[in-house]
């Protein structure tokens, strides 16, 4: 059988009604292994205006590089208390936030390992389909050889790497369009 995937439609401005019940900004309760990460950012449009009606979702492996998904058949165990999924709905400043752990490295194309990263899916009014992007970690030596990061033109790679702030949090912003536009993937 060969069917065609349903057409994507915008999430619209009223996403909170349907999605707020499962906001997950703290992914890693006490006991989950790994280095703790506080991640904050903003979503802005082509005019630099905050986007106050976006859903930002992250998906990640645990600290051992294992996804809590039946599709991940690697030997290392998943952790019961760590699903690896987060959802934040932007506020009036366009801001979103997560507390999580730094994921381990996961396999990539041709058996090479990828640098630690978070997979990011973004929905909002004005997007007829989601944007797909990634967050990498600053100063990780594995970034230099990451097979996905290396597909991105060198001058744009920095848009996928979070910055470490003086207060210890990681900052990663989404610029939808224009100067310093975030890299988005055709997925």
């Amino acid at each position, binding site marked *: 059988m060969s069917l065609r995937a349903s057409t994507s439609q915008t999430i619209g401005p009223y996403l909170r009604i*349907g999605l707020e019940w499962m906001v997950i900004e703290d992914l890693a309760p006490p006991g989950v292994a790994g280095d703790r990460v506080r991640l904050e950012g903003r979503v802005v449009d082509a005019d630099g205006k905050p986007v106050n009606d976006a859903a930002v979702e992250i998906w990640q492996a645990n600290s051992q590089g294992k996804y809590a998904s039946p599709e991940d058949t690697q030997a290392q165990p998943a952790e019961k208390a760590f699903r690896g999924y987060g959802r934040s709905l932007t506020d009036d400043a366009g801001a979103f936030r997560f507390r999580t752990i730094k994921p381990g490295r996961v396999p990539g194309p041709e058996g090479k390992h990828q640098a630690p990263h978070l997979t990011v899916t973004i929905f909002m009014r004005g997007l007829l389909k989601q944007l797909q992007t990634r967050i990498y970690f600053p100063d990780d030596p594995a970034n230099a050889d990451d097979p996905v990061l290396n597909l991105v033109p060198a001058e744009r790679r920095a848009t996928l790497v979070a910055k470490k702030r003086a207060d210890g949090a990681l900052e990663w912003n989404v610029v939808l369009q224009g100067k310093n536009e975030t890299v988005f993937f055709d997925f």
Partner: protein
Amino acid sequence: MKDPAPYRRPYRGTQPDYLFPPYASTVRRAPSQPLVVLPHTLSELTAPVFGYDDIKPQDSDLTQQHPGEPLGERIVVSGRVLDENGKALPGLLIEIWQANAAGRYNHRVDQHDAPLDPNFTGAGRILTDAEGRYRFVTIRPGEYPWRNHHNAWRPAHIHFSLFGPAIVTRLITQMYFPGDPLLEYDPMFTCVPDEKARNRLVSTFDWETTMPEHALGYRFDIVLRGREATPMENRR
């Protein structure tokens, strides 16, 4: 190790572009730089799993979430979730939200001059069963105006959000109603050139799921992306 099989890329004309000027909000929000083609690695081929701990049985009946009955016409919305290979997708989380019968959302941003209904929130969720089936009871949402262009009205619709087996199968879409005269004027509905793809967003009246003396049935099947049959070893 062989690379795992990727998901199929969309068929031409069946998925919207980011920039679609008739829908005015896309103009300042669509990316302008070329997208980078992403290989489907383990990060793209996996997705979170949800279970019965996450939802409650009454979450799928939007008419039973308050002390009183909501106003409007009760309907049953049901269907199956399949992938492009025709495989039923069990255990998937579906989230829906919608306007009330008067065309008003229970949301601070919605200032449309139509009444809120204290007995209707407009949010539901369910997990698909072993055959990929789902079933919601709700009320038929009203049409409502928006400010996209002069005299713009959204056709009646229900928002659907689905998680599939992989992050790249994540889908948010809208279900419409058969025979709605507003569809042809709606830039969201007309955002893709493929007419068949558009029409798959329109539910069908379903006599078999219609409940006698109680509620009309509408059927809405959803298809998520499917995997290529064989791994493509040299894909870059």
